[in-house]
């Protein structure tokens, strides 16, 4: 059972289509499967009404647009609607919807527009058995596309190289896997998800080559989402504290890495497991559940280092 109510946090989602009733049917179908985002959803049959709404609110960051929604081509309509959100500095994304048979031309146009993530039949958003999965897939695409947009591949490679150099091979790989593992079951927003994935890299780069991050306010803000006080001992109080989740997870990853370097990882995880009773904070229960997996990360990190040295 999944309740990921922070997934789409921080922006509105707009449905636009010309066909009578269809946009609201899509809106309500999504709302039915994901009541947590109903207040973020709006739908329109009129492009002008949608445009006015996007301009007025300025926070519509995701679009579900039928290919015949406007008199202009859908990629132009998307750009015109998205521009109001993008003034804030973040990219907007969307998916194009079709009724009946897919149109090859539309499909090609979607594939050529990086911010249009999918070309989908409306049925997958109207069918109660498919809408939940479709929205989860769209979210995954959204997170990945956002990451690629603000961290293009060459930049990722450069940052990783700098961070690995700073942290050392073992820490770099251990924290990388650990944060991925911890994030996978947490109620994190799209932004926190990306931030946690890159925070240890960005922090290492900030320490070793601060000039690299200076021209990138987005990357610095990602790091700020995760930087916080040390988690201290692995206790129920510390892991259940009111510190924002992304800061807590980042601090925990660093604490466990420190324990690894001191040869205490197994002991710390055993201690966490003993505290993970029903009602204990999620992070404690996670450490108990994934104890063996986390220990394999330690081994893997050692192996990678050994391979590198060899």
């Amino acid at each position: 059972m999944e309740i990921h109510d922070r997934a789409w946090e921080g922006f509105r989602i707009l449905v636009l289509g010309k066909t009578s009733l269809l946009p609201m049917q899509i809106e309500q179908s999504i709302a039915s499967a994901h009541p947590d985002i109903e207040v973020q959803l709006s739908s329109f049959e009129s492009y002008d009404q949608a445009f006015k709404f996007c301009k007025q609110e300025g926070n519509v960051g995701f679009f579900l647009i039928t290919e015949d929604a406007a008199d202009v081509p859908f990629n132009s309509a998307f750009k015109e609607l998205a521009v109001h959100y993008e003034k804030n500095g973040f990219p907007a994304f969307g998916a194009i919807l079709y009724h009946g048979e897919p149109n090859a031309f539309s499909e090609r146009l979607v594939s050529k527009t990086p911010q249009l993530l999918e070309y989908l039949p409306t049925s997958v958003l109207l069918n109660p058995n498919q809408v939940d999965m479709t929205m989860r897939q769209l979210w995954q695409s959204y997170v990945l596309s956002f990451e690629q947009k603000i961290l293009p591949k060459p930049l990722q490679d450069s940052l990783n190289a700098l961070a690995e150099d700073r942290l050392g091979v073992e820490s770099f790989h251990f924290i990388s896997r650990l944060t991925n593992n911890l994030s996978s079951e947490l109620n994190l927003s799209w932004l926190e998800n990306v931030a946690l994935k890159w925070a240890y890299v960005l922090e290492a780069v900030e320490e070793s080559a601060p000039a690299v991050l200076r021209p990138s306010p987005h990357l610095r803000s990602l790091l700020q989402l995760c930087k916080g006080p040390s988690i201290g001992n692995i206790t129920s109080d510390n892991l259940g504290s009111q510190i924002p989740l992304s800061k807590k997870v980042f601090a925990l990853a660093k604490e466990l890495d420190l324990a690894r370097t001191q040869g205490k990882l197994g002991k710390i995880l055993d201690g966490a497991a003993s505290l993970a009773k029903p009602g204990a904070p999620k992070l404690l229960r996670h450490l108990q559940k994934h104890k063996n997996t986390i220990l394999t990360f330690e081994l893997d990190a050692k192996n990678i280092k050994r391979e590198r040295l060899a």
Partner: protein
Amino acid sequence: MSQRTSLKLVTYNPNDYSLGEVLVKDTQQAISDSSSLSAILSLFFQWRDRATCHIVLEGNRSPIPASMDYDREDRFPSELKLTVVNEVPIGPPGTHKLKIRIELFRQCYEFDSALLDASVSDGICLFIVGMPGQILSFKQRRLPRVTVSVEDAGSLPDCFGLLGSEKLGPLRVTEIGTKAIRIALKIETQLESVILGGTEIPVEKVRISKGDHIYSFKFASHVHLGVVFDYYRQLAYPHIRPRCDFTAEELLGLYSDTNYLGKFQTEATASQRLDSLKDAWNSASQEFHRITADYVSTDDDNNLTGASSASLAFFQFAKPVWVFHQLCAKTLPHLLEQSGELYTWRADYLASRTEDLSVLAWFDSKSRWLERIYVKFAFHKNRSAKLRPVAVIRKNFSPSINSGSLPTKKERFGNEFRVMVDNVNSFGGAYPKFLNASGILDAIVSLEPVESESALNAIGATLASAVGADRLRLEVSVPFENKDKITGSDCELLHDVDRICSFDKSSLVDFIASVEHSIAVTQRKKVLGEVGDAA
């Protein structure tokens, strides 16, 4: 996948005096697929402030109010936390399951969960339970009911009881709905009637609960319904008042301020219209509760903020068709809840009527708030409701030789009559002219695809003949795809409304739930532009 289960007996609950109203036909589902379970719990956690949660203990003990939450950091919750003030007699962990009942937007969900841990601290019990593998979903079929506090009672009409020729009272009313009344009576008796505001209303004793006597109303006329509804709505809808409490000038000011009349084209000038409306509203007030109900909303300073009506406007398949109409509301954020009352009182009111009926509503889909209410209602809460795009075309009709072939029904409206024609899949009605302030109830409606215009023309001609008009202008609503079937040089396509929704009386509770849910969503959205008017 969700699957229907067999009909379930309603468990006797001594605190629920409306047992007879609890209909479970087609309303119970066992839900076990992960996505649906997530959606139900997510809905609850989104609207915890509007939901209730109870732990239901075995035996006949009353459900215990509880607060339910989960670890909000967990994307895949594996346990729920229930907090109960006061100690609860529940055994050690591992040996019990807890039955939990949550209610939200008039939907009730019930599930069993394994008790994983229980602890008590400072008189607060904390239960940790596992996630449910199945949830039973029930629709609440009860009409709303309200508690009458001692303070409330002071401002409400006195209630007396009648036992033969003996008059008891004034009596203390502790709860009232439109179906039943709960009275604190110290003596064992069997009242035959109650007198509310001077009107004698037959009642029948249902039972005694916690010392209070519960009687169901036996309405013998619309007057009884009117008296009870007016008593009840002062508590349930404190901002709603009868339209006749205000002058025609005040009402016209409201309709002008909210641009209700401006939305509709009309030939009448403002002064002519005022005179006509005065007459029409006078006539309507004489038929209040018989075939029309007209209320307005006011703010705390008694200024008019909105109005809405429900009227018997048509017959289809010999069943009365009541129309939600004439709704206008000032679109200010702090009046949103009141705007909602303008919708819900009508549903509550029609559900309280004794006769079977259908409901019809037109609206403009540009109002996304209305579209949300009706789509939520027709596609998610009650699939028997029919919601469809329509074209509304204004057209003139004249009596024809064949016009006498269709039978008509007449209903008195004060000094005037409403004439109605029921012609299988289409129906129509006309007059009094300002039954709706914009004249939109002089209309023909076809809810099904139109094969040819002739059936509609026959209705139009019959109506023109029945009202004695050489030329009767009617608004013809047809499925949008049939708009070209309505022909004639004087046809005019209107754009003020483009949706029609029709549903049965039994769906009204779901309609109220949709309104309440949509209001909650809109309040969170805080988007004033989405709150609009309905026809």
